[in-house]
């Protein structure tokens, strides 16, 4: 049984060092009453999935601006499936071209937030999609 507080893992996959967005989102989610774990930079998909399971999170938020998303995201989704953790909602943000967004949604990434997104929209999205036992 899950806790009544939504738990979110904000993660930086790959070698990308742009963490402004990840940190701003992490803080906004925390201020909205969620429990937020931030991985820091240079996380492999394996590390992210492991942390997500260990920390029993409801949501993984991936942030990437290096262009490696089409390599790293599918790998992460595959690992989640293998670990039978597909109940975790995966969302992403960063510099992700429109045609890639279509592909990424097909493999189960629930939403992709591009630059300029209002953090309230992200908060609403999480609240609508996470079914927490209250």
């Amino acid at each position, binding site marked *: 049984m899950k806790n009544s507080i939504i738990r979110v893992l904000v993660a930086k996959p*790959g*070698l*990308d*060092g*742009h*963490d*402004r967005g990840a*940190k*701003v989102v*992490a*803080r*906004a989610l*925390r201020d909205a009453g969620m429990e*937020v774990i*931030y991985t*820091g*930079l*240079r996380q*492999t998909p394996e590390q992210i999935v492991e942390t997500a399971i260990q920390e029993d999170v409801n949501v993984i938020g991936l942030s990437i601006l*290096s*262009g*490696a998303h*089409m*390599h*790293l995201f599918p790998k992460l989704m595959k690992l989640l499936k293998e670990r039978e953790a597909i109940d975790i909602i995966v969302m992403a943000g960063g*510099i992700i*071209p*429109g045609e890639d967004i279509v592909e990424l949604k097909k493999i189960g990434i629930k939403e992709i937030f*591009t*630059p*300029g997104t*209002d*953090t*309230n929209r992200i908060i609403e999205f999480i609240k609508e999609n996470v079914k927490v036992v209250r």
Partner: protein
Amino acid sequence: MAEQDRRRRMEETKKQWEEGSLKKVLNRFPERNKVFVTGSNTEVNRLYDPFDLIDFDYIDELNFPGEYPYTRGVQPTMYRGRLWTMRQYAGFGDAEESNKRYQYLLKNGQTGLSIAFDLPTQIGYDSDHSMSHGEVGKVGVAIDSLEDMETLFNNIPLDKVSTSMTINAPAAVLLAMYIAIAEKQGISSSELNGTIQNDILKEYIARGTYIFPPVPSMRLITDIFDYCSKELPKWNTISISGYHIREAGATAIQEIAFTLANGIAYVDAAAKKGLDIDTFAPRLSFFFNAHNDLFEEVAKFRAARRIWAKIMKERFDAKDPKSMMLRFHTQTAGCTLTAQQPDNNVVRVAIQALAAVLGGTQSLHTNSRDEALSLPSQKSVRIALRTQQIIAYESGVAETIDPMAGSYYLESMTKKIEQGAMDYINKIDQLGGSPKAIEKGFIQREIQNSAYQYQKDIEEKKRIVVGVNQFQSEEEPMKDLLKVNPEIEKRQTEKLNKMKKKRNEAKVQKELKLLRKTALSKQNIMPSILNCVKCYATLGEICDELRSVFGEYRESLKI
């Protein structure tokens, strides 16, 4: 007497204006906001007038161009002598592809190259490392060994170009490769012209491509200062960067405060090593961001020059004027580009580029309109370059030196930014200098707070971003975005394997062992690294050897 009369008349007239026509208008039409602020939340007055500059001393605060404290610029003729260098940051895929792009740029009159490396190269991993998957050739060119570097500069005479390399943690290795290919071209290292970024402190603060912990990292940097002062006298040994600090969310004041505090730390470290200040300080260069708030940005560049000159003269007792001159490269602000209505970004970039030029930059990169969506397309890159050319050749701002000087607002803002930055620098001194302030998380926290505040201001519509939180419109998705060839990673790995079979393995192992010995000693590390790259030890092998001696940096996290 006449002076006093004039002053009295001015005071009386101002009073009349305030109590008369101003008051009347304010009563009927209240102003748009209670408080007006700059792009960085610094308060702006309704009006600036001679009263703001009552104690203003022209010689102390501005002086003539090329004279201390260099507020009006570092050269006596500025752009009347030579325009700024238009230096577009480029590089993608493998060395062969990037070489073609550079040759094209040079043929079209560009004299300065600016090399973008991919992330594995920047973090010291070869293309076949497990951490490199998906990243090879993405945000820049992949370099594994001297062989790639030979391809990258094939048919480019290194005595004719100046090359700027955005490389930090493994800067010594890439510089060594550059020296080695110059040697092969028959060019002496003393003729080489260019810059390595080599600024590790801002990597810990904002950019993230660190490898080693601070102490050995600072040693690598000061080894480079020392080596270059003897062997590469024309090389800019560091580009102390505020750009990424600003991108991470810092304000204009924080940008220059933290950058100059880092500058102080590098000078301190070099002095501690026993280097003479006037032998290395003239080769220090800087790199700043240019945002949308035109006056604030121009003031920022001028304030930075004035502060650095004073620091070098008063704090470090520099004697050579060149040690006191803050020379800088500027890039327009990536974080101001919007994914919405991307064509509007052309206008933002134009304003930012104008700020850089009015601020007296030595070189400039203008961003492309599509960079909030992907790596820039060729067409967008061309518009960005043309923007600089229009400013240079059509706007008229380059025809006289520091044209905004003397503006009541600009000079007041320059002073305000100088004071704000000095307050931060003093605070950082109290914390024990910037490496300590970084370790304590002070600088990172200040930046994160500013970034969060900025985001909240946008969401609460205290700050308007056209197309994002106001004036939105339905739009077609942008077409022709650049795609990096996914085959690059495979091709690069194959090349690497082939090269490893060709090289003299015993020699490589011997040189790596010697490198380890040097790393453990107090000797300058550059000659050892140079020997390693010459026998085709890879970037990853060299960095691994250093990792095993120096250890790796881990950031401590606080949100």
